């Protein structure tokens, strides 16, 4: 083989490799979570992301099609586009109520088509229908809460044992556990009990706290949550000093020290000025008396 042929072969190989590298598309990962708030409003949260190095980076503007049970137009939950954080929410549409009500194990499917940057991707999620309830324990020495999780089956509600849940107080900017434990686990009756040890916590103006029982990304039931408003907090002791004398008060609420200081200073200066003006009249009088 001549030297020219070897060079052409190397060039062709290099070109093909670079084209192949250029055409290699990134993998898209679709994350799907199921939420049920207060046993009423189910919805799905989807996240599209890709792996760069060791980190996952959100992928905005990803077009996704989400289905219930099978990939068909009749089972379409919605076509959605992820936001700048790579997330999107899909509510359950009313036309799928019958399918929803007749199912006890829900299967969700999500697909994204191939794009210029990413290969096509899909994801699925299987969830068992369940309910969560929250009550206070009536006969407890210390205020306590009882949360119960029931799986909905064709035969009725069945207690869900060994499910990890959280009992928290909803605060601005985050949740606070009701006691020392961060997690509680349901027993064979599907219930978990927690003691409320955060007495004296500031509540709303009537002393009410919002207590939440929730599961977080449970592999069988997803994210269930329910809440209750209980009078276990302290109403805030608002000190109303609006009517007191202060530098920021209204004109009739000026501090006494300021009134004394301001009026005595201004009064002193103006008294002196009035005295000086009276002396000018005296000088005039002397002058006119001399003239006459």
């Amino acid at each position, binding site marked *: 083989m001549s030297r020219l042929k070897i060079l052409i072969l190397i060039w062709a190989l290099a070109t093909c490799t670079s084209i192949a590298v250029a055409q290699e598309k990134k993998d898209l990962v679709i994350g799907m979570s199921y939420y049920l708030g207060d046993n009423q409003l189910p919805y799905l949260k989807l996240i599209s992301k890709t792996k760069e190095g060791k980190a996952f980076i959100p992928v905005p503007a990803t077009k996704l099609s989400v289905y219930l049970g099978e990939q068909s137009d009749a089972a379409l939950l919605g076509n959605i586009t992820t936001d700048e954080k790579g997330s999107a929410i899909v509510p359950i549409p009313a036309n799928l109520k019958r399918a929803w009500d007749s199912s006890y194990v829900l299967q969700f499917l999500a697909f994204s088509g191939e794009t210029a940057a990413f290969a096509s991707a899909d994801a699925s999620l299987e969830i068992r229908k369940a309910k969560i309830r929250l009550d206070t324990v009536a006969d407890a020495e210390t205020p306590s809460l009882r949360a119960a999780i029931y799986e909905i089956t064709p035969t009725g509600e069945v207690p869900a044992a060994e499910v990890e849940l959280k009992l928290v107080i909803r605060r601005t900017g985050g949740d606070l556990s009701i006691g020392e434990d961060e997690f509680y686990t349901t027993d064979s009756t599907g219930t978990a009990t927690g003691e409320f040890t955060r007495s004296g916590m500031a509540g709303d103006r009537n002393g009410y706290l919002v207590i939440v029982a929730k599961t977080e990304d449970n592999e069988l039931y997803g994210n269930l949550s329910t809440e209750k408003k209980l009078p276990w907090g302290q109403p805030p002791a608002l000190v109303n000093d609006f009517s007191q004398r202060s*530098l*920021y*008060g*209204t*004109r009739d609420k*000026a*501090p006494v020290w*300021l*009134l004394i200081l*301001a009026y005595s200073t*201004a009064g002193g*200066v*103006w008294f*002196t*000025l009035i*005295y*000086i*003006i009276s*002396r*000018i009249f*005296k*000088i*005039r*009088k*002397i*002058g*006119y008396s*001399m*003239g006459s």
Partner: protein
Amino acid sequence: MPGEIIPSQRILNELQPRRMGPWGKTWVAILALLSLTGLVAYIQQLNKGLIVTNLGDYVSWGIYISNFVFFVAISLVGSLITAVFRLMNVRWATPLTRIAEIIAVSAICFASLIIIVDMGRPERLMNLFIYGRVQSPIIWDVIVISTYMVISLLLLYLPLLPDLRLLLQSKAEANKRFHRLYRFLGSFWKNHPAQKRMNEKIITILCILIIPVAFCIHTVTSWLFATTYRPGWDSTNFGAYFVSGAFLVGAGAVVVAMYVFRKSYRLENYITNAHFDKMGKIVVMLALLYLYFNVNEYLVPAYKMKKPEQSHLQNLFAGEFSALFWFAIMAGLVVPILIMVFKKGRTPKPMFIAGLLVVVGAWFKRYLIVTPTLLHPFVPMHDAPARFMHYFPSWQELAIAIGSLAGSLLLVTFFSRIFPIVPMQETIDEVTAEQHSGAEQGKIIYQQMEEQHVTA
């Protein structure tokens, strides 16, 4: 000639107000034209409202308040030259007292006017008195400015009384038309010892009174800014910073006025090179003091570079306002110091240039105190129209500001046409006292010589 004993009659002739020459008339015409343009712009603002200005939600205090602070600052000179020097018995400053006082009166009058201009609805001024809160620095400013204006007017008027008598006695044709005014103001002055004594006493009281009031006016004006939580104003240094700056610009203005009056009224015998030399030293001292406060004012926040201050300071040092900032520092402070620190620089012409630089630099400094801060609020400017992000005054604002500056100069010019700009009676008294002390000194020397002769 400087140093020569001038006879009283000659003093009277040389210090009497004179008719304006062609230069004077041109000067008045230009000032009158600028003032009228300002007036027309103000009438337009009255008709259409503040919409004719480029003031907005962010820069609500623009060129008007910069001008106000400048006028307030320049008015401090009255208390410096008249009161401080009089109380310290600094006799060399006598020819400068009236120049200082008329600058102070003129500046404080226009400071009050420019505030009304900034209000947009001047008829609501009364609301300030009816509904004003004594806790507000704005009310303190109103009280202290009106008090300072009255004291300055009295300090201008009372030393003028003996001169009014001299003017009434004068047969100079140029001032005949003002005799009615002279009579109205001072016909009662008979140079009676009781009158003189009383006048001296109340002038001394006024001199004592004006110093704390002058400090208050500048401190309170600084508090209008310092009590507002904003980058660039959040400083405990502001009172002293404003007072020192006011002393400097006032002294600079006196230097400029000294040169102009000396030149146009041929007052070389009264405003001598020695006056320029002494004023030069004072201006250098004041400029160094103000420079010190400037270093405090900018170095400390620049060292910490707190986030909200950062963009404000960067804008001043190297951004949108950097040209103005460095001009104000270099031309308004550093260059005048470099000129006046040398003896050759403390002669009339270099002093005039240095004084002018101080005054112009001071005006821009006030603009820099007001505007850049307003463009850097703590809460970021979101969803605001693009024009709110920058500020440049509209032609109406510029015309009103320039008109007010011209108006104040016009007031000083008219005053110097009607009244003697160098006190006549005080100059005669001082020259007579000098002659008397010279004769007394001669007698003592003669007696000493006699004694020496007898001993020998």
